[in-house]
């Protein structure tokens, strides 16, 4: 008689199950029926029983997926990357996504899953190739929300996602990243250090994909339902109409979440999605305080942004500085434009700008443009 396979650990069984990529309306009943991945493994691999609602192909796929080398590989990766898992049966599975349409049957995670039950969770989404101002604003708003005890959820991509996570880490709250590949992979590569930092600072990286699964393009819009599902409200920073960020918003609306939308530059194509959303009734906000107020999260009603200080240092000292500040108060201007507005010579303007930069009243943007510093 052939020796029976020892049933592997729970996480390995769950990886095996998730790797087969069964549709969730098949997988969830399966997990419920057999009360866990290990007994599914036992039934299929050891007892070789036929399961009624699996097609023969699915059954074969699961059976052949249980060969020793695959399981061994899972085990190695899971240990190496400290991957943990929770299925929809488990009590630690976050309630916020248990009841969304199409919940992920199994969640893999690195770090502290408790964070998903944090009292205040906001998803921040936006373009990977966002404008410089968009990135700066994202960072400062995430920072401020985080300092008020809000956890930021995002997707670990470049651009707005990265700035949201970083801003949240700067502000001191743990942050949550939902990714579209197996947790042994990092996509994009450049965010490896961010990923490590998130876990170190008590945050969590979540994925519905088993280890070894590659970051396929179609994973990302799909995982966006988890981003919106985990959050109390979704904040759109900067998006075009046809973008992944807009799918997150769609999910959020289906799930009945609040959607906040940053106005952005009304003329830029980068904010097209924002404009449509605002027109359709998304909540308008420009500062973190707006969000906190709307969500009723203002602990201290007299709260103002902390980093505005009205010290004497922040005043223009001479007519030239005053002229430049006045010109910039009306909007962002390029170097040449400031010259034509103020009539200063280029050498005068250069030294004036340096003085204003030192006082942190003016900041430089790409393309040699300047604006009043928001810090």
């Amino acid at each position, binding site marked *: 008689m052939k020796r029976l396979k020892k049933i592997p650990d729970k996480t390995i069984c769950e990886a095996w199950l998730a790797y087969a990529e069964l549709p969730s309306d098949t997988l969830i009943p399966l997990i419920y029926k057999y009360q866990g991945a290990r007994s599914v493994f036992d039934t299929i691999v050891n007892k070789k029983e036929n399961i009624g609602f699996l097609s023969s192909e699915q059954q074969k796929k699961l059976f052949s997926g249980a060969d020793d080398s695959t399981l061994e590989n899972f085990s190695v990766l899971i240990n190496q990357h400290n991957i943990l898992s929770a299925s929809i049966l488990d009590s630690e599975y976050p309630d916020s996504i248990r009841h969304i349409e199409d919940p992920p049957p199994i969640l893999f995670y690195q770090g502290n899953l408790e964070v998903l039950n944090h009292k205040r969770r906001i998803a921040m989404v936006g373009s990977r190739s966002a404008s410089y101002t968009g990135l700066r604003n994202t960072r400062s708003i995430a920072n401020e929300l985080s300092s008020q005890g809000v956890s930021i959820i995002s997707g670990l991509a470049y651009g707005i996602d990265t700035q949201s996570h970083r801003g949240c880490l700067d502000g001191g709250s743990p942050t949550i990243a939902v990714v579209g590949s197996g947790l042994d992979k990092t996509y994009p590569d450049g965010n490896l250090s961010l990923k490590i930092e998130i876990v170190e600072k008590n945050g969590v990286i979540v994925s519905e994909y088993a280890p070894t699964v590659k970051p396929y393009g179609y994973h990302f819009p799909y995982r966006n339902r988890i981003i919106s599902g985990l959050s109390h409200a979704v904040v759109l920073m900067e998006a075009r109409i046809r973008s992944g960020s807009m799918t997150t918003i769609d999910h959020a609306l289906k799930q009945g979440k609040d959607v906040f939308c940053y106005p952005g530059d009304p003329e830029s*194509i980068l904010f097209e999605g924002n404009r449509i959303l605002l027109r359709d009734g998304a909540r308008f906000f420009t500062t973190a305080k707006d969000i906190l107020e709307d969500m009723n999260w203002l602990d201290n009603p007299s709260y103002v942004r902390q980093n505005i200080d009205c010290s004497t240092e922040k005043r223009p000292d001479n007519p030239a500085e005053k002229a430049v500040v006045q010109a910039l108060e009306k909007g962002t201007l390029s170097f*040449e434009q400031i010259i034509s507005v103020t009539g200063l010579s280029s050498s005068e303007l250069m030294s004036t700008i340096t003085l204003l*930069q*030192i006082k942190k009243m003016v900041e430089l943007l790409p393309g040699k443009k300047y604006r009043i510093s928001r810090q």
Partner: protein
Amino acid sequence: MEIIGLPDASVRESRDRVNAAIINSGKQMQPRRITVNLAPADMKKEGPSYDLPIAVGVLIATNELIPSIDFLHEKTAIFGELSLDGFIRPVHGALPMVISAKENDIQSVILPYENAKEVACIEGIRIYPVSTLSQVIDHISGSHTIKPQEQISFCDLRKEQHVPIDMSQIKGQQGARRALEVAAAGGHNMLMIGVPGSGKTMLARSLPGILPPMTFEEALETTRIHSICGRLSPGSGLMVTRPFSAPHHSASVASLIGGGQNAKPGEVSMAHNGVLFLDELPEFSRVALEALRQPLEDGVVSVSRVKNQAQYQSSFMLVASMNPCPCGYYGSEKNICRCTPQEIRKYLDKISGPLLDRIDIQIEVDAVPVQEINTSKIAESSAQVAERVAKARKRQQDRYYGMPYHCNAQLDNKGIKKYCPMSADAIKLINAAVETMNLSMRAYFRILKVSRSIADLDEIDIIQSSHVAEAIQYRELDQKYWR
């Protein structure tokens, strides 16, 4: 007729040219064996400039030509290429040949007519420009001597200076114009960063016009290098306009710094005493850029090849331009940049720290709006700017008299400490800047050098806070979002 003494193909072929030219000049070539020996025998000879001397030597040796007493009395050098019909064609490298003739106590030179203007400024040597072999024969035999060429004074030549792009043609770009002026005043290397079409190339091309005019020695050095490489247009005189060399970014190391089988000067030497413009700096190969470090530091390049070893002068101002990101539109309003931060960093990292270190002024150039292009406002001309620059340079020459520096850009840290005194306000300002803008120590010294030049433009000895404040704006890459 046989030619010995390591001739290359073009020298060996001169046999046929000499033969035909002599016959076509009405002289006889007896059918007999002639051996032409080029001494010293161990040095390779190349090029067609030996045609004329070989022809004259053969004629004298075969008694077809009897030199006059006058001719025999003075030491004469002869060079030129012959055509089959007996006309004389110009050669490369006339200027260096005449200079070395003069150094070897030769009193007169017979050379092709087209090369005469090139050497017309050299004193103390008689120049006989000729255009046919029969002219040379008549001159040597004394039957019809040629008048030596009149010397042209350098001052007269200088009036012919031709500025390719005058600053008055540049619309807008107040910031970049000022940066160019400061760069010219202190001899600082410069990097311009800007979206495509923002006018970086045009700005760079205007730089030679605001640099101080070349001195006689500088003009001689520069013309010499161009003469060797055959880059002088025929009939042109000594170069009085500072050269502007703009190699394409596919340039190899050898074409950039010099080399090849026989070690020829490269683009950096062509830019000697002028401007070397590297458009699209990150597109140059890394090795090529690294090879620039020696000429940037020492003003000479040493080229070693198996057959040859040479040093070429190459003291130039480097002006480089680049886009802010691979697609070029980072920070642009009209086009949207599609580069990821990693791509941008990778692009910028192509320029190594040590090279960037030698570039004192880094500015961002913004595209000029259409309204500006159409204005009839006439901007300052190059001549006006050049006047201020010349004054600033003069101050530097006086200050660094007897020191190893010529201009502010060459100051080392010791020199900076000695020659860059700052007012109390200026010290306070730069300290504040280092703190708030995260400037490195290296940037600190660069800023001091540049503020020295700005103060020189203002004709002030002690660097004021406004000078430092302006200089800080020329360190864009240091304070930038992208680092």
